[in-house]
């Protein structure tokens, strides 16, 4: 019994150490400008301020809005592309499907910075540099290979009998996919959507290369410009960081088991 408590105490200690930077971000976001360079730094935001968050509301809302649109757009594009492909790989098993899975695995390993360079050259010529659709398209390349692999794995677990029954009832393959397979794949849909959103929301490489001069910029660039301008208002920077972390936190709270499943699937962000 005592040993169990000791383990819990040790676990709490490890977690506290691991999450200290997160606490520090919150603490600094509430610290007054005048206390920012106190020596030693204030460990708790006593006598704190909400100035940082006021700055977020005044300056960062457009960035947050753009990120939301980019995130949702990426989710939609990723689902539309990867769910049918996953179905085909898992259940229709065409010749060459194995090669496609291989290509998708390789695709996941290509550094984002190199994709960004290629996209930059193409976008510049096509005139879609600094546009939101261009950014959505680029961001989706992070999630589509992952999406196909997740849908393939998940749909492989759906019994063939169900599909055959639908086919015998006269449903076409498309109907079978849309009204039998998709509703059963809720878990996979949630997992893929979560990660597609999170990756698009967090993306910095594509945003800085493809949308660096855009009118509508995502929150990652909002923070980056804060830092880059030699802005010494660290409470505002950290407040923006806290706000930018909300989606990740929400996802962890409401969809923790999907997150764990996605990580285990070999999903790793750039």
């Amino acid at each position, binding site marked *: 019994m005592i040993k169990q408590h000791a383990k819990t105490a040790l676990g709490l200690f490890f*977690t506290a150490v691991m999450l200290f930077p997160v606490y520090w971000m919150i603490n600094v976001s509430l610290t007054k400008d005048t206390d920012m360079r106190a020596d030693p730094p204030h460990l708790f935001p006593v006598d704190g301020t909400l100035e940082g968050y006021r700055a977020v509301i005044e300056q960062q809302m457009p960035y947050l809005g753009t990120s939301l649109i980019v995130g949702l757009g990426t989710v939609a594009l990723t689902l539309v592309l990867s769910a049918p492909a996953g179905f085909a790989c898992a259940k*229709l098993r065409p010749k060459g*499907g194995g090669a496609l899975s291989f290509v998708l695995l390789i695709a996941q390993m290509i*550094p984002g910075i190199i994709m960004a360079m290629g996209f930059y050259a193409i976008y510049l010529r096509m005139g879609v540099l600094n546009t939101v659709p261009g950014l959505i398209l680029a961001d989706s390349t992070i999630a589509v290979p992952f999406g196909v692999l997740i849908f393939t*794995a998940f749909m492989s677990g759906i019994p063939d009998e169900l599909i055959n029954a639908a086919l015998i009832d006269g449903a076409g393959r498309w109907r079978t996919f849309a009204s039998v397979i998709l509703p059963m794949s809720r878990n996979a849909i949630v997992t893929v959507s979560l990660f597609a959103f999170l990756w698009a929301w*967090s993306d910095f490489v594509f945003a800085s290369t493809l949308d660096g001069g855009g009118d509508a910029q995502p929150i990652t660039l909002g923070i980056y410009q804060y830092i880059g301008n030699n802005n010494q208002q660290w409470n505002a920077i950290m407040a923006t960081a806290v706000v930018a972390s909300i989606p990740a936190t929400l996802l962890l709270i409401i969809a923790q088991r999907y997150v764990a499943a996605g990580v285990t699937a070999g999903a790793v962000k750039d």
Partner: protein
Amino acid sequence: MAHDVMTRVPAPAPADAGARSPRRRKGGHWTAWAFLAPVVVYLVAFYAYPLYRNLDLSLRHYTVRSFVQGDAPFSGLDNYRTVFADPAFGPALLHTLVFTFVSIAFQFAIGLALAVFFAQNFRLSATLRALFLVPWLLPLIVSASTWTWMLNSDSGIVNAALELIHVDPVNWLTSPDWALTSVIIANIWIGIPFNLVVLYSGLQAIPADVYEAAAIDGATGWQRFWRITFPLLRPVSAITLLLGLVYTLKVFDIIWIMTKGGPADASTTFATWSYRLSFGNLLPEFGPGAAVGNLLILMALFFGLLYIRFQRRQSS
């Protein structure tokens, strides 16, 4: 359910499994490719083409003008020669390797220790394990800017803590001696959750009766770890390490945001070097930038193919 299905995802679908759907009708082959067509078109247009453009960039002599107009002369491997001859090449290669291997070593060791610890299923263990995912889920710019402030020379909490134990303050991000260490520390912090979660799921797959048998034979905890856990975890460990290698090689955001590869190139890796050549200067050098990027792809593919080979051998 999702969890069970997904632990084995990266293994491609076995080719002979067509036998499992005997009712496949004539023409099913084409239907299947109709479902796949969007993704194939997508991969060609938005993966293959950008990569081809990048290769093309690395084989031509570009200026800003010819970059827009697209009439740059073919220059063969000149850009690669330029890159190899650049005095920054050696240090960048060294930093890339040090950053990758040191990060991986610590992430893996700490992740494994935590996985073994959390596998003991004490009160709150599931909740605390979930909380460990937070650093991995945060946008990299959030983590990187938080670490930037924590490691600030004058007002950072890290130097304040060092002062408490009478250690002189360190110029973490502004001294060439410490910049690489600083970005490695931040990167280790970000990578621990991934290692923890994957290794933890590997531990769950080891049958409990093996441990019971060992306990009856009087094995100590230390012996159980080295004689049972470690050998049985070897396949999962190899996969974790190889994936970690592939993904750590291409880390860009953290380094760029914290140090921009500086000071004086002290934390420049291939990823940040390539970005700086193409986007970081007033006069972009797209050719050499693309060349460095392609070298980075080669390195990532080397470990990536090793991973796929290993993964296939595991599942067969």
